């Protein structure tokens, strides 16, 4: 157990360092995929299996695909992206310090640190984390759940209104009109008298 945590945590930190040091943005994204897989394993070690599987399903399966998509298709010059590193470094260090202080607070100060939380009691083999989550989420926390639906709805509308473009003057087939066309629509026969030969 212990050793598994340290193995996966080491790989996780290594992958996170890889994300910000890799030269090729595509490699950065692939490192991020590795980092997500490792955090999923860490959640699994905490017996939060549903969260672990959702992390893989949503982040690796969908969000990272979008990231790869953007990185591979975006017309960015890699050098120009890298040039901002020293300029943004102070802000990055500041954020890092804030997060470190917050983590220290959680671990050492609140409720006498992690000892106040107590040891994780291993659950029996037939314990179903997903079911326990579902029993709470859809009854006690239904309001938050419906809010999630509203947020998703807003996301749909926002995505469509931001990226929907109709290109004018585009030629497209309309199959129904093509099939439904009649001879009278296309060919016009004109009656006229024969002309003299010149």
């Amino acid at each position: 157990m212990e050793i598994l945590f340290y193995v996966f945590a080491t790989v996780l930190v290594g992958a996170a360092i890889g994300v910000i040091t890799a030269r090729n943005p595509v490699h950065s994204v692939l490192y991020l995929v590795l980092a997500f897989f490792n955090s999923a394993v860490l959640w699994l070690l905490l017996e939060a299996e549903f969260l672990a599987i959702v992390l893989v399903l949503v982040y690796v399966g969908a969000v990272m695909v979008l990231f790869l998509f953007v990185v591979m298709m975006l017309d960015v010059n890699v050098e120009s992206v890298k040039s901002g590193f020293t300029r943004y470094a102070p802000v990055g260090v500041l954020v890092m310090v804030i997060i470190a202080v917050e983590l220290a607070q959680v671990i050492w100060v609140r409720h006498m640190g992690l000892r106040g939380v107590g040891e994780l009691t291993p659950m029996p083999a037939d314990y179903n984390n997903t079911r326990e989550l579902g029993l709470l989420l859809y009854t006690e926390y239904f309001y938050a759940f419906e809010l999630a639906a509203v947020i998703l709805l807003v996301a749909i509308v926002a995505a469509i209104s931001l990226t929907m473009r109709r290109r004018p003057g585009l030629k497209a087939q309309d199959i129904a009109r093509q099939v439904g066309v009649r001879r009278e629509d296309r060919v016009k026969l004109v009656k006229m008298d024969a002309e003299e030969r010149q």
Partner: protein
Amino acid sequence: MLENYLPILIFLLVGAGLGGVLLLLGFLLGRGGKDAQKLSPYECGFEAFEDSRMKFDVRYYLVAILFIIFDLEIAFLFPWAVALDGLGMFGFLTMAVFLLLLVVGFIYEWKKGALEWD
């Protein structure tokens, strides 16, 4: 509970081991020779026409974002389906309202033509 995941751990170990062994074998047994011709990108026998970084139609992103949204919806459906027998009518109606809201979004998307490609 964690003992249920032992097969996955073994799978990980075997997969990593096999991948490492194959890479190592290729490295040891393969005849090297990485000349410029071998490393150059190959595009149907032509020289590469242009850089692969190019602007794509924004609608690819639209499809991807809509996919993520409905992927999240599925993530919410899983625990509901697992716990359905213990939820009762209230839990059922909760999910009905959730799905109703997303169906509104789906109809909007459909009528707006975001699923069309022309």
